[in-house]
């Protein structure tokens, strides 16, 4: 059986977890087994119906008041107690912030190794095989596991969701026992930056600006585009971040985030190797740059050589027209 950890934030199931469940279900098909899901928290049983349609035949709900706020120590204890009981062959996480924090803790508790941030999964001779980018995508490593259970986290925005299926299945509720002094490093609160909408790693469309944006105020132009385009987020190159035009959590590239949206729009980004590493796995790339020699054009599906300040206004109008249709 394949067990998928379903992440919840503020009472909602994260889409990236459902992507992982969908992929888990596909691999379960290869292995002639089932995909099960696990929810961890407090007062979360009501979220189970939203999980079934994406491939889980069974949803475990692990509850304890100590789990109402996330902590890697508390969540890993709850999850490992379930794993020891039901003995899955494979455990999958999303390589989200929570997944990247939690999966290694679970792996170490089980004494097994982990593959992080995978972009391909397959089954060979009954075993899981994963491919993960290393050097921010400058190379790809295909990996198999010598320990069991096999554990991997999967990159958000890479794996397609299943066509939603049955909305019902078996819910197995468990009250987990955790000693209070074993819950360490709990999240006290979530601080949301004003106007911080979607993260670049989760967006369908990333609208990015580089040195060619000339100053922090011009990032408003990109925000105008993201306000029109559904599920979009503002990204930036390292030089824009280092110039303090925009916060580093928008940075795409080797010392920022690696993204694979459906569409990456690069404005005034020359395309340094570190930046290309972070966005080359986008499904489509378009670029606007003054310099016809800019490296970004070598990876762009469509490029405009021109002044971004002249291109953005008519681009915005055209996008508005198409999207409102």
């Amino acid at each position, binding site marked *: 059986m394949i067990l998928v950890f379903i992440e919840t934030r503020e009472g909602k199931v994260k889409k990236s977890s459902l992507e992982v469940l969908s992929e888990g279900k596909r691999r379960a098909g290869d292995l002639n087994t089932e995909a099960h899901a696990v929810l961890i928290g407090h007062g979360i049983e009501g979220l189970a119906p939203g999980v079934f349609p994406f491939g889980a035949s069974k949803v475990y709900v692990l509850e304890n008041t100590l789990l109402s706020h996330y902590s890697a120590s508390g969540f890993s204890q709850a999850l490992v107690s379930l794993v020891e009981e039901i003995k899955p062959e494979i455990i999958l996480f999303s390589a989200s912030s929570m997944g990247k924090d939690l999966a290694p803790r679970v792996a170490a508790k089980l004494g097994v190794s982990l593959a992080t941030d995978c972009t391909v999964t397959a089954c060979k001779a009954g075993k899981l095989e994963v491919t993960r980018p290393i050097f921010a995508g400058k190379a790809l490593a295909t990996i198999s596991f010598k320990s069991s259970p096999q554990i991997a986290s999967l990159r958000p925005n890479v794996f397609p969701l299943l066509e939603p299926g049955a909305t019902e299945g078996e819910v197995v509720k468990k009250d987990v026992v955790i000693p209070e002094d074993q819950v*360490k490093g709990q999240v006290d609160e979530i601080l949301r930056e004003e106007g911080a909408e979607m993260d670049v790693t989760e967006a369908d469309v990333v609208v990015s600006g580089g040195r060619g944006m000339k100053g922090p105020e011009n990032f408003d132009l990109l925000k105008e585009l993201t306000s029109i385009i559904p599920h979009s987020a503002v990204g930036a190159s390292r030089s824009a971040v280092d110039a303090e035009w925009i916060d580093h*959590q928008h940075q795409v590239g*080797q010392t920022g985030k690696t993204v694979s949206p459906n569409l990456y729009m690069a404005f005034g980004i020359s395309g340094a190797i570190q930046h290309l590493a972070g966005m080359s796995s986008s499904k489509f790339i378009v670029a606007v740059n003054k310099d016809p020699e800019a490296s970004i054009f070598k990876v762009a599906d469509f490029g405009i050589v021109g002044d971004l300040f002249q291109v953005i206004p008519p681009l915005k109008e055209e996008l508005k027209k198409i999207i409102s249709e």
Partner: protein
Amino acid sequence: MSLLLILIVSFRCEYPKRDKLRKEERVNIYVFVKRVPDTESKIRINHEANTINEEGLNFVLSPYDEYAVEEALRVREAGSGKVTVITVGTEEALTTLKKCLAMGADEAVLLKDETPETYDGLRTAKIIARAMEKKFADHTMLLFGKQSVGADNAQVPSMVAELLGLPQANVATKLKIEGNKGIAHREIEGALEKVSLSLPAVISAQKGLNEPRYETLKGIMAAKKKEIPVVTLADLDLKDEDVAPLLEVIKLESPPQRQAGRVIEGEPEEAAKQMVKFLHEEAKVI
């Protein structure tokens, strides 16, 4: 002259008191760093050996580790304590440790491991956790970069925390230490999580935590003279089977090359129109 003498004497008298205070409040900070190819590097693969071709690569201190070293120095400067920098690797990593000493770290230790890159975070975590238990049991804080630039695993800090039973705060952009308590802000999707920790704890650094300092000439000279003790896996009673990799790299390959598409010039209005037409009709993403 006599005034000067009095001054010196009074300073001398002050000193033992301060020293005593220091010992009580002392934080022992361990920072874990890795030697990696710089981010400019083009990565070439040796297909026969299934490894990265290291020839001609320029190796540096992994960028996120710089934030970890800087934060350790700041915590020490705000109170008192000792900063020890540790790496797991071959003697080639001594250069990386020297850089950290030149930045201002007090001590450096090489956990000598001749095994080539395994991409297995648990293996590294086991070595570090064992070293902390056996040799550095005085730890009050363990700082890491949020991931190495290269393996991109982002596993070792959490695994070490688990193996040592410590709390963790990964991808920290803010850290405040007061007594034996800490508060960290860790970056998540579109927000920050505020995490409370009691020390000892594991913290991994994200860009934005601080602005790493440059080495000073004085620091570089001092670092040159400093002895770097070497601890072997045998010293840690780790046998080959204890640290056998549990992952197998079947294949390393370069990513598929993207083909350059259409590039147009001309009137901004017309160009914008064509781009949107491409996005809507050909790419079908808008």
